[in-house]
């Protein structure tokens, strides 16, 4: 189609924390500043800003995109806040791509921020204002109901056990040991996960990622600018996003069709025919351990129900053939919703440049895919990066 080539040239992030002292604006600035410094650009060099931040209910500020503007570097600049629930983090990476690819801008700063600790008495409480106000919220559902249903359905459809799934949590928390910004790195065992407190069967405490505060930022540049800035640009090769119906009873939860549709858009654009072979690193969204497997199947990295086997065979370990969540993912680094999505894109950026330090995946990876999921089991957002 002759699209304009767009590269990521810089990345930055804050620590992920259960409670940050910083305000949301300050978190945004800390991440954005590091991202700009990393490619030796200043705010003057930036054409536009894209903000990704999930529900207003977390930071507890109505119109919070506008509120965060100055911290994200949007002062007197074109500024848009994109939003697809939990899938926002990777979506804004897509959105920033078409800001630059449209030819309107040569550079774009994309910032994702979340300060969930502002939501009291517990961030999870705010989810009750998410569901259908007429037919769902009055039943007093917790967020975990949906995940538990989906996990149950997934296990039922393929005969997968809780034990097989628990290994995801073990792997990701261990991967996070090497991430200096991680909130919950740990060496745990499958038994620890299985024996942790049951929250909503089959979901147990260690199946779940923590709530977090944090921010991540990336700098995008068009080809001619990127080449001046760096000799190691990471190209955005494919983008895709997709939403399924709002009505949960009309979907079969065992498989994320919306992730598949989003992935197919991105792979088509990137010219990838066999993702299971061509992708070197994947960062599927893992707010719950089963979710990594579920999403990876949606990303067509393996067949339906086959993800647990890849995990068991060590294929998805950092040293395996196709590492999944080498960063440590939401389970290990922390789940600051939108920021976590963008953290996954940042991780690919660092990995493909060979700059991931102790987390570096061996064998000079060339292609990576990051994905986020959101809403009421509805959203798939995907980005494919390559060098």
């Amino acid at each position: 189609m002759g699209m304009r080539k767009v590269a990521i040239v810089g990345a930055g992030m804050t620590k992920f924390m259960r409670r940050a002292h910083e305000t949301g604006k300050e978190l945004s600035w800390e991440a954005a500043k590091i991202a700009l410094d990393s490619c030796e650009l200043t705010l003057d060099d930036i054409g536009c800003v894209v903000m990704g931040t999930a529900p207003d209910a977390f930071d507890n500020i109505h119109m919070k995109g506008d509120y965060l503007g100055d911290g994200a570097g949007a002062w007197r600049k074109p500024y848009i806040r994109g939003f697809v629930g939990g899938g926002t983090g990777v979506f804004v990476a897509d959105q920033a791509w078409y800001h630059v690819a449209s030819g309107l801008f040569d550079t774009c700063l994309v910032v994702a921020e979340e300060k969930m600790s502002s939501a009291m008495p517990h961030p999870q409480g705010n989810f009750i204002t998410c569901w259908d106000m007429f037919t769902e919220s009055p039943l007093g559902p917790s967020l975990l109901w949906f995940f538990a249903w989906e996990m149950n359905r997934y296990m039922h459809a393929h005969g997968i056990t809780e034990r097989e799934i628990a290994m995801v949590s073990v792997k990701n928390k261990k991967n996070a040991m090497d991430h200096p910004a991680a909130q919950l790195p740990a060496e745990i065992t499958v038994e620890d996960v299985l024996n942790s407190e049951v929250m909503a069967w089959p979901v147990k405490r260690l199946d779940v990622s923590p709530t977090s505060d944090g921010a991540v930022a990336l700098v995008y540049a068009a080809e001619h600018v990127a080449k001046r800035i760096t000799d190691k640009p990471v190209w955005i090769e494919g983008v895709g996003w997709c939403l399924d119906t709002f009505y949960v009873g009309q979907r079969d939860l065992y498989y994320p069709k919306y992730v598949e549709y989003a992935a197919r858009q991105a792979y088509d654009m990137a010219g990838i025919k066999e993702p299971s072979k061509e992708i070197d690193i994947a960062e599927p969204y893992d707010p719950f351990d089963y979710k990594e497997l579920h999403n990876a199947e949606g990303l067509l990295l393996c067949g339906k129900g086959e993800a647990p086997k890849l995990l068991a065979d060590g294929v998805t370990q950092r040293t395996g053939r196709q590492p999944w969540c080498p960063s440590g993912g939401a389970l290990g680094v922390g789940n600051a919703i939108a920021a976590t999505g963008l953290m996954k894109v940042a991780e690919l950026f660092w990995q493909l440049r060979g700059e991931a330090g102790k987390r570096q995946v061996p064998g000079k990876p060339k292609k990576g895919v990051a994905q986020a999921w959101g809403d009421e089991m509805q959203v798939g957002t995907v980005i494919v990066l390559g060098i």
Partner: protein
Amino acid sequence: MPVEKVTQVAQTKPWYGALSSKYGEALLKTPEPGLYGQYTYGIAGERFFREIKDNAKITGTKCQKCNLIYVPPRIYCERCFEGLEEWCEIENKGEIHTYTISWVDLDGFRLEEPVILALVKFDGVYGGLVHKVEEISADNVKIGMKVSAVFKEKREGSILDIKYFKPI
């Protein structure tokens, strides 16, 4: 053939919901606790309000590059994005940059006595504080008028530690 639309007012019925301290009562029909926001002041806000609380002093941060002093203070300059670390004390003497006389309260009810609200800017400072102005009648307020902050005796570290601004 499409199903019938709503044609009778008597058929319409709204469904109520809330996001308030009465959340559970309104929606779940149980005396549940409400949802609320808790906001830390952040790195700059913490120091700013500590100064107000402990010393009744207004402080700002300075951007050397843009030659601007921020009140409320920031840890970054919104214009050039540099980190700001230099703090300075601001004289408690400002000027009304603009004001309004509000005749309505937050619930939308008319006030018996209107409230004067103003943005007070300080000399040489980029920014200022939004607050009430008292000890003056609504007819006499003017843009450009000099005012100073009146602090509470017992302060807790909040914008409400300033009771109001009064004319000098």
